[in-house]
């Protein structure tokens, strides 16, 4: 059954990466590629599924596996909740050697009962992991029995780590929502509006969703569900009655967007709230689609007015930093749309982007990046090996690196300013306010007086 699911998500027709592949490569799927023993990085499918579903804040997330899968990982991300905190608690069957010998189904059943009795969640998400998958625990069956006997939805998330990468896990999480959650309840018929939207693949990391919601509120656009940022279980069950889907972080949950279009006729578009132009484009796309779906046509003019006002306000707030950032050199080491979406703001600051990494970027992303880099193909790079990155930074080829946590210490040990723009970041960078925040953080990082202190050699090592 899981095999069929895997084949299904590998064959995603709307996935640009998949479409670009040869027939032979398509057969290989997206799971195994890139996982070279001794040189692999990143999480497993379970990790990806958990990342995608954990932001559902009012349910219990129960991990069926040995201690590593939850004990090493719970409460480790910054997805924010505006209310319930149950999602931050760690629940696991903590399988022991005896459980492995005798099978873990009974323990799982008991664990589900305990969690419901103690914490009374609207639903329980049960995550399958490698060890119980290997010994043949039938998590789907246990969940079905539990749902029936205990009277609340107990949802199996069948994405054991060894089936593939984090990205695959994201997609399997999406399949879980489609199979068990979305469309399982109906909203009050009087409470359906043409301006209801879902945000698919938005996880409200460090509360960045809330940098956007004031704009939506002003336009009268309602987020029916974040899928899954700050989501309540009930919102997800009725979100098939939204008018428009916006797909953020396209690689992760495209299957959800496409299948919701297929099943319920909800149009979707891919967009992003990183960068000023992206934010404006996304707002325009939402407005246009809502109008197509029956919203009052003045929404478009009101959106344009809001964009004009917010863009101007945003640039006004960014400009004071320009003098302090002008001429500074940036190494942009991220991927996907971020390859280019923050470049224009950096250019506006008068900063020079010395390199931008185009890992995980589509051809469209690459073209946009190349255009912004004045056609300089050398500035577009794939992965930079850590020693080379260290050398570049140590020798001052960049004044600051924007990247993810994985390369943080390459920059810091090279005594170079660094800013986290990936998922573990502490500050929110979405929308217009987010871009102002990013520029401010960059200013604070690169102009911190610490750099002179830490770069100076010890007095006894200074040249005579």
């Amino acid at each position: 059954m899981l095999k069929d699911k895997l084949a299904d998500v590998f064959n995603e027709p709307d996935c640009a990466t998949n479409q670009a592949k040869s027939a032979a490569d398509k057969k290989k799927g997206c799971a195994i590629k890139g996982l070279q023993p001794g040189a692999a990085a990143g999480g497993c499918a379970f990790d990806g599924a958990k990342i995608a579903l954990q932001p559902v804040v009012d349910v219990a997330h129960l991990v069926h596996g040995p201690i590593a899968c939850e004990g090493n990982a719970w409460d480790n991300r910054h997805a924010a909740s505006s209310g319930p905190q149950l999602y931050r608690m760690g629940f696991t069957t903590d399988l022991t050697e005896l459980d492995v010998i005798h099978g873990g189904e009974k323990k799982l059943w008991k664990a589900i009962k305990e969690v419901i009795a103690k914490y009374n969640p609207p639903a329980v998400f049960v995550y399958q992991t490698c060890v119980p998958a290997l010994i043949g625990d039938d998590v789907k069956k246990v969940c079905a029995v539990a749902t029936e006997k205990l009277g609340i939805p107990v949802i199996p998330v069948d994405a054991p780590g060894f089936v593939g990468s984090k990205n695959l896990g994201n997609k399997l999480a999406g399949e879980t929502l489609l199979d068990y959650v979305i469309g399982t309840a109906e909203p009050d018929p009087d409470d359906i509006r043409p301006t209801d939207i879902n945000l698919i693949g938005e996880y409200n990391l460090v509360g960045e969703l809330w940098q956007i919601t004031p704009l939506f509120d002003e336009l009268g656009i309602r987020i029916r569900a974040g899928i899954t940022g700050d989501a309540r279980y009930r919102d997800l069950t009725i979100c098939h009655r939204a008018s428009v889907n916006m797909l953020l972080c396209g690689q992760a949950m495209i299957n959800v967007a496409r299948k919701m279009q297929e099943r319920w006729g909800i149009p979707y578009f891919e967009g992003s709230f990183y960068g000023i132009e992206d934010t404006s484009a996304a707002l325009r796309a939402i407005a246009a689609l809502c109008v197509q779906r029956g919203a009052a046509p003045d929404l478009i003019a009101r959106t344009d007015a809001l964009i004009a006002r917010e863009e101007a306000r945003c640039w006004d707030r960014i400009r004071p930093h320009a003098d302090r950032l002008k001429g500074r050199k940036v190494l942009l080491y991220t991927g996907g749309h971020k390859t280019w979406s923050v470049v224009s703001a950096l250019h506006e600051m008068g900063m020079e982007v010395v390199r931008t990494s185009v890992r995980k970027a589509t051809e469209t992303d690459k073209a946009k990046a190349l255009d912004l880099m004045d056609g300089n193909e050398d500035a577009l790079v794939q992965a930079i090996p850590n020693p080379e990155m260290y050398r570049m930074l140590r020798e001052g080829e960049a004044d600051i690196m924007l990247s993810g946590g994985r390369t943080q210490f390459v920059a810091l040990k090279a005594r170079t300013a660094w800013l986290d723009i990936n998922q573990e970041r502490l500050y929110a960078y979405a929308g217009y306010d987010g871009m102002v925040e990013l520029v401010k953080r960059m200013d604070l990082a690169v102009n911190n007086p610490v750099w002179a202190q830490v770069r100076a050699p010890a007095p006894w090592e200074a040249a005579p």
Partner: protein
Amino acid sequence: MNAAVLTPRKAASVNPLKSSAPLGAAMAYLGMAECQPLFHGSQGCTAFAMVLMVRHFREAIPVQTTAMNEISTILGGMDHVEQALVTIAARAKPKLIGICSTGLTETRGEDVGPELKILKARNPELADVGVVFAATPDYAGGLQEGWAIAVTALIEAFVPETPLPTDRDQITILASSALTPGDIEELRDIAEAFGLRALVLPDLSGSLDGHVPDAYQGTSYGGTTLEDMARLGASAATLAIGASMRRPAEVLEARTGVPTRMLDVPLGLAAADALIVALREISGRPVPARLRRQRSQTVDALLDSHFYYGGKSVALAAEPDLLLPWARLFAGLGAALPVVVSTVNTPELAAVPAASVTVGDLEDLEHGAAGCDLLVTHAHGRQASSRLGVPLYRVGFPSFDRIGSQHRVSVGYRGTRDRVFEIANLFLESMDHEHEGEDDHAGSHTASG
């Protein structure tokens, strides 16, 4: 009085106290010089452990994975192990690769150890790389146990069985996972005060102590070298710190004949005294004046602090090696321990000065901690702390929401003195807040400056 050890039959562990055994093994390997730990499992096994260690140490954590998938798990993963070893040897150029298995590979029952020789023999690029294997299924024990298994494996792999002439000025310290890099540095300093050079295994003080190397390095930055391992047989004695080091110590003594002394983590006056007595006997030298003075300072700290500990209730959760000295410290200052939780059932738990010790999770701690004055556990206690409105004092791994924990010293007289004061100040601070309330100065923080 012996503590009753309770093992509740819960099916769902809620808010785990435990980290995994392979994580512990990998951390022990990171205390070896120029080492690259390798998890034999799915890539997630490595990623989760790596992320948690990065958040705790705020350092790059060079761990790798054999990237097992469903098919290789069923068919057997030795070719993944081989490929990983060759790739790592070429890319990171380590002196040592430390392999730890995971629940995934142990469920199938793959025995990697015996095959390593064959792998090394047919891959000449592995000739100069030490390779060691520790069997650490995720479903048995936690961080402390995995760490101990790795230390045992290192001894079996790299300590020769041929006896060496004894160097009277050299001792071996087998360090439990309960010790921070700062603790290890302090132990080494204390040993030096007796004229003893300490070889520490594993030695996080050289690798995860947060320093800035002069060049890029893709392996651990420092730690115990294989040359050090070869010299352990020359030590005058082995100090095994923490009960989890008993098994490694037995193996080391059997191989080298060097006599072992088991010590508790030397936090608290009595435990620190036991360390000093041991060093005095091994070295045959008197206790140096500065240590005598430090002991006197620690006694003074206990005197000044006991007012604030007396009658307090403390909820404590930690792995056994850390639990015991902390429990004794609080009990020895007149605080009660109404709820004590640990990760695994070991004989030492009965020695905890409390009515009972629960082998459980942070839910057990939280349920017992209502009305307590202080929570003492690792950073994951933060949710219970905010729900209960009880302050949290962070001990153990992980401490991901505070920085500098790798340098925190809790051992010896100085470590004890500083920790006793620090916690007394937490009690004082909450008393200040209570008085503010009583005096109806609510909302005003001017009283405390």
